[in-house]
């Protein structure tokens, strides 16, 4: 879609202002019900669109000039309220802009999208602004934590959107909403200016309608950033052009532990198997691989992430910005009451687990132990990638569930079964719509070794066309 929009804009068949107005109208129509956006920036969007039209007239365009998009509300944009959908950051106006946003040159920001508070959740139900509804069935969740961004793209409320993925928060909503989502290799896209959750696992990534669009977006934002010292200086290609080349014959690995997961809906498994069959018929080799430590990934994740969260969320103290409790008698209670009142339940849970796991006497048994199991999980993937070029798996055990259905917190954690392992290993994961179960979208996850986005995008593009999407 992005290539077509670029052509239309450059040929003046449509102006950026007209395009932006179309999206703003759609938002007015649908957002009340979907709650994808928590903040619509009508005035500034139209200003940006006007500026884009001038740029287009001058001929000096970038791939995204004049194209409207949405940002998850953990991306800081200078001068625009950013809250991570938490009460504790109400009214926070960042004095700087996230690097990813700076690299989306010429694009028009329509607004900020809904998310689970501080990206903690798998359904966007943990937001202080209420849940986002799935455009395919509004009684169901859009997934999380980037549910708003996924829903916005799915419901044509933005041409593309950005979200974040720490344990599956781009991949699972992409699957639930029937859009394409990419979790890049950790270190490929700058984290600067995005409110941190778990610094060793947070990644920033795009949602779009096609793999080609994802490839275009990836080329724009990937690469070394001096503001994020964990980014690599590996060269950034023009990935959308690479997609036009014929696909090499790949060894496609199916991890047997994923297929055997107890909670995996058999109809979802069938969707994945059908894709695998189609690939086999096209001459690709299908191999069964083993990732023996798969079932330890979610527990490992839920030691490491809360630990890092407890550290990253310590800065929200009612002093420099955000919510401050009015009933505090002294400094200590300013901290305690602001945080106690400002944070939601899941945030408090994770902060406390992390405080415990990092505390003296427990660090070895929990945090250090989990870091070692993380090594075992990484080794599983390294071994599997000796036998296969990419791995194909479900993105989620089932289709989108009903709002309120997963009231048990361990049930919610189990949503991450297919996405947490890749996050722990730091490898990329692309989710592409693969079919439907009961008219609800099912996505397929394509994982590759670190830094293998080219391969992962190529396979995703191929699957997309195989399924005639």
């Amino acid at each position, binding site marked *: 879609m992005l290539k077509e929009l670029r052509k239309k804009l450059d040929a003046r068949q449509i102006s950026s202002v007209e395009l932006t107005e179309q999206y703003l109208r759609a938002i007015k129509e649908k957002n009340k019900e979907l709650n994808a956006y928590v903040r619509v920036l009508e005035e500034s969007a139209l200003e940006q669109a006007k500026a884009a039209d001038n740029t287009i007239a001058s001929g000096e365009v970038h791939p995204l000039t004049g194209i409207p998009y949405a940002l998850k509300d953990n991306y800081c944009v200078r001068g625009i309220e950013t809250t991570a959908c938490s009460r504790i950051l109400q009214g926070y106006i960042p004095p700087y802009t996230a690097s990813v946003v700076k690299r989306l040159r010429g694009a028009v920001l329509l607004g900020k999208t809904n998310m689970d508070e501080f990206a903690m959740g798998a359904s966007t139900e943990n937001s202080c602004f209420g849940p986002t509804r799935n455009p395919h069935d509004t009684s169901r969740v859009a997934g999380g934590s980037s549910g708003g961004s996924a829903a916005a793209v799915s419901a044509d409320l933005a041409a593309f959107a950005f979200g974040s993925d720490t344990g599956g928060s781009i991949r699972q909503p992409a699957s639930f909403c029937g859009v394409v989502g990419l979790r890049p290799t950790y270190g490929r896209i700058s984290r600067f200016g995005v409110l941190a959750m778990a610094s060793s696992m947070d990644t920033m990534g795009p949602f779009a309608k096609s793999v080609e669009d994802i490839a275009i977006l990836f080329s724009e934002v990937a690469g070394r950033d001096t503001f994020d010292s964990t980014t690599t200086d590996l060269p950034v290609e023009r990935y959308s052009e690479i997609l036009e080349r014929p696909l090499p014959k790949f060894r496609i690995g199916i991890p047997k532990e994923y297929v055997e997961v107890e909670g995996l809906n058999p109809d979802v498994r069938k969707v994945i198997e059908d894709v695998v069959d189609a690939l086999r018929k096209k001459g690709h080799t299908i191999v069964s691989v083993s990732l023996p430590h798969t079932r330890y990934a979610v527990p490992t994740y839920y030691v490491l992430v809360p630990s890092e969260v407890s550290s990253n969320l310590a800065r929200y103290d009612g002093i420099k910005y955000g919510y401050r409790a009015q009933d505090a008698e002294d*400094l200590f209670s300013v901290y305690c009451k602001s945080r106690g009142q400002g944070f939601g339940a899941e945030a408090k849970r994770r902060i406390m*687990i992390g405080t415990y796991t990092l505390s003296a006497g427990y660090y070895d048994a929990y945090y250090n132990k989990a870091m070692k199991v993380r*090594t075992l999980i990484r080794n599983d993937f390294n071994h599997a990638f000796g036998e296969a070029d990419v791995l194909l798996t479900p993105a989620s055990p089932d289709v989108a569930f009903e709002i309120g259905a997963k009231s048990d917190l361990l049930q919610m954690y189990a949503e991450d079964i297919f996405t947490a392992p890749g996050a722990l290993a*730091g490898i990329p994961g692309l989710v592409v719509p693969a079919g439907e179960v009961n008219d609800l979208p099912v996505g397929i996850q394509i994982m590759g070794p670190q830094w293998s986005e080219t391969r992962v995008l190529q396979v995703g593009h191929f699957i997309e066309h195989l399924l005639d999407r």
Partner: protein
Amino acid sequence: MRLTREDVKRIAELARLSLSEEELTKYEDELSRILDYVDQLNELDTTTVEATSQVTGIVNQWRGDVVDYEFPREEMLASAIEKQEGHLNVKSIFGRAS
């Protein structure tokens, strides 16, 4: 791993979280369940395994010690809750109420 109410109080104090009585009860149960759940990591023998603290292998990205950007003070303080003459206003650091 079963946490007691006292455990939760201590953790909440370390984490600077003030919790209501209902919350203390709720979290006593929830945190215990989570810790029980993650205990399964002890099924694995990791005595000879190195810990992974980062996945990129990148170390020590240096840059020159040069200030090349500006953060205007007014903007930095724009979101501050209580300000006075370009500073943040906070309650007294010493003399905590008991």
